[in-house]
């Protein structure tokens, strides 16, 4: 059941306004200091702010740091 959950959903963790973790993501759609768009399992996560950067990125998760102002979850057209 957990495996099914892990494949179908992404886990998004935010620490204050400076750190954001996304587990089980697929790819990066846009990358800039002001906006980072990440394709998660079922939605598109849009992180907006200033001084954004990807601290690390591996097969399982990604960590974004910077001054985060907005986080939007958008439907992905399947």
């Amino acid at each position: 059941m957990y495996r099914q959950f892990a494949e179908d959903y992404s886990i998004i963790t935010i620490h204050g306004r400076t750190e954001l973790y996304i587990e089980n993501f697929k790819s990066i759609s846009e990358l800039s200091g002001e906006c980072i768009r990440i394709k998660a399992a079922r939605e598109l996560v849009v992180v907006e702010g200033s001084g954004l950067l990807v601290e690390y990125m591996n097969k399982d998760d990604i960590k974004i740091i910077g001054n985060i102002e907005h986080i939007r979850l958008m439907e992905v057209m399947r």
Partner: protein
Amino acid sequence: MNLEKELKGSVKISVCGLNTERFINICHNNNILLNNVITTDNGCCMEISVRDFKKLKKPARICGVRIKIIQKDGLPFVIHKYRRRYFFIHGIMIFVLVNIIMSGYLWRIQITGNMHYSSKEIINYINRMNIHYGMKTGRIACEDIEAGLRQNFDRITWVSADVNGSRLRINIKEDDTGKSDYAQTAESDICAAEDGRIVSIITRSGTPIVKAGDEVKKGDVLVMSKVESFNESGESFGVRYVCADADIITETSINYNDSVLREYELKEYTGRIHTGTGIKIGDRLINYNVSKCKYDNYDVFTEYKEITPYENMNLPISYAYFYYKEYNITTSDHTDDELENILNANLMNYLEKIQENGIQIIQNSVKIDIGSETGQASGTLLIRTPATVHTAPVINPATEESEGTSNE
């Protein structure tokens, strides 16, 4: 600082081109770890390990991006930089190797908790057990050391020995109840150590032969080890031998003689000092100074500075510092007062010294006589001394009927 990152090495790269996001996604799909991805005007910068950097060729070709190395960090690059400095690298390798090899040998003996026995005494005993500096720590039998110390040092009640790296730690607990090492346990008589008169006698065990007021000579038995038991009718029914024990004070007189010449040589240091250095290897002293001291009269003071890498580890090599102090000799005469003061001081020193040994001075009849050439102090001292000696009993206990050796 990430140690793993430093050991494996990392490179900071700049990725230029239109499809940098695609490049990052391909890296992600190929399980390439990217760190600190920052966007720049014409692409992005990121940090990547050396191993992953070699996998970037294919993604870069697919996405049409250009990769440029900005910075290199980590041990692989340091090694590459100094690859031609053979002596430096070999020196480091030899240093590490020597350290590894030397850590398997004994270089330090640490003794704690000893109050009565000196560390040197214990180390000398350990050396006699064939445990010495420079031996392999694996050959040290700590149990043997513990057993040996307990057996040979009476005051040690508890001891633990363990090897910690290249150090042998010995922790000792001593019996501090004041038990003497030389406590008599076997049957023995108490005899007089000097001629004199018995002042007091308090017997704890054994049969006293003398009483207070008796005159005794040196070697006379004062307390016998033989103890007879009597029944109600006063008949002896058994003999046993004990270790005689008694507090005996004997009054005796001793002669005191001292003389000092009136004429004396006075040594006056001029303040001129000639110094020199040398080295002492074992018992041999080597003086570096080729030109010896040119003073006519001088005293040589030698100061040794031992080379001690560790607390108790003394190498047989020590530095020697020689100080040649020049002096002039002048002949002079003591005045009568000076002679009297010197003789008095000598007498006081003598009295203090004998009083330290528990001797009580009852009467002092020493007289000082000042002559034209010498000053003399002579006379007798009446003292009270507890000095006695233990000797083997006169009668062999094996020939007598014995009921045991207990004094109770």
